[in-house]
């Protein structure tokens, strides 16, 4: 195995494109090293991206935030302005692992690991976040939602890496929330999860909504029917019931030791409803 630490994204792309064997990008390593230890993968080349300028910085951009691909969960949680603007995104990222794991894990690593249960992903999809992809054919911006292809697989092409995430500017009276169900209070993988992002008008009526569900399909789902169920409402009981029903209807989960199809389908609906209530309150709405 070879270890490389390129100092530009172009060099990383060149190394990854030229490699003939198995490659792994290394950010926080909290998935990669577990896979190495388990013998699940034996890479010929590991490309440590943490020496690329900007990849560990978080800064304001165009009214929103540009977050370097290797910024850790702990760093996100300490950024007061980011947490105030995007509480749902940051609470999802901070649910990943222990404080030790938080010291290293990145949202982009969570996204590129492509687990349907990744805790950072529903919040980012609900936020309509984009990622900047750099590769042999240059740079492109892609919706987070378009990155996971199937469990463990992304739509990134050979030689491509993600260098940053962009969270857009917020309209007034906007907020978000993320909830997951796990059988214990810490350190477990989501059985079902939901991220909800809302904008209200001055009267408290929802004018825009995005609802994403995790762990209930091969990739995180963006559910338009959930958004339709609550846009134009003040999140009254009828709207909440319609939201819950639309969320459950969108689920295509698997049965495994963590949860049955029936359980995941029910819980995803409940979590979508509860996350919507939290996001609504954070956006200044009164129920």
């Amino acid at each position, binding site marked *: 195995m*070879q270890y490389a630490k390129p100092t530009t994204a172009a060099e990383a792309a060149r190394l990854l494109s030229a490699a003939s064997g198995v490659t792994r990008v290394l950010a926080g390593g909290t998935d990669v*090293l577990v896979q190495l230890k388990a013998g699940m993968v034996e890479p010929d080349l*590991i490309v440590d991206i*943490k020496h690329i300028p900007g990849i560990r910085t978080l800064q304001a951009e165009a009214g929103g935030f540009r977050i370097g691909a290797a910024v*850790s969960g*702990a760093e996100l949680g300490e950024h007061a302005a980011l947490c105030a603007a995007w509480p749902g995104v940051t609470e999802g990222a901070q649910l990943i*692992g*222990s*404080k030790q794991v938080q010291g290293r894990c990145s949202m982009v690593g969570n996204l590129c690991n492509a687990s349907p249960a990744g805790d950072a992903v529903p919040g980012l999809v609900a936020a309509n976040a984009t990622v900047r992809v750099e590769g042999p054919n240059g740079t492109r911006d892609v919706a987070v939602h378009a990155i996971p292809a199937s469990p463990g697989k992304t739509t990134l092409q050979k030689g491509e890496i993600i260098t940053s995430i962009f969270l857009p500017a917020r309209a007034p009276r906007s907020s978000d929330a993320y909830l997951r169900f796990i059988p214990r209070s*810490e350190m477990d993988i989501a059985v079902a999860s939901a991220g909800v992002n809302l904008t209200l008008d001055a009267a408290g009526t929802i004018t825009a909504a995005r609802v994403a569900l995790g762990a209930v399909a091969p990739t995180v789902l963006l559910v338009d029917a959930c958004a339709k169920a609550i846009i134009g409402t003040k999140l009254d009981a009828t709207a909440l019931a319609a939201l819950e029903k639309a969320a459950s209807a969108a689920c295509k989960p698997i049965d495994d030791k963590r949860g049955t199809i029936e359980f995941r389908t029910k819980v995803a609906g409940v979590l979508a409803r509860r996350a919507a209530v939290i996001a609504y309150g954070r956006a200044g709405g009164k129920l």
Partner: protein
Amino acid sequence: MKTIQVATTINGDAVEFVCAPDEPLLDVLRNRLGLTGAKEGCGTGDCGACTVTLDGRMVCSCLVLGVEVEGAKITTIEGMATGNQLHPLQQAFLDHAALQCGICTPGILVAAKTLLDRNPNPTDTELRYWLAGNLCRCTGYDKIIAAVQDAAQKMRTA
């Protein structure tokens, strides 16, 4: 496999070592540098027995490659006492019998110190959440919480 030369700082001392590119920092500390305080409980980030700090952040040394720490600053349990003078946390663990087999203890001490450096007066709940990544099969945790709170109190009034 070709080994790589790495220069780093551990507990304030400049250290150089060679390691394989896929060798975890934990193995480097234990097998190449004789720093056997950090333990391997799982090797996959679940137990926290291997906890060290890397540039001020708490990490599992089993989830860091040795080659990644070039130019970094690492602290381990070996850096906690001052000569023969135990750190208040170490003394409190003895006073409260907060360990039995002791495998988890170095990781818990490093984690607890990292918390107290940031928050000298945590609630029990904050402390338990902070230590959620440190598993102990022996004590049942209550004595660990009591020991950390006792040390925290002594450090606040010291």
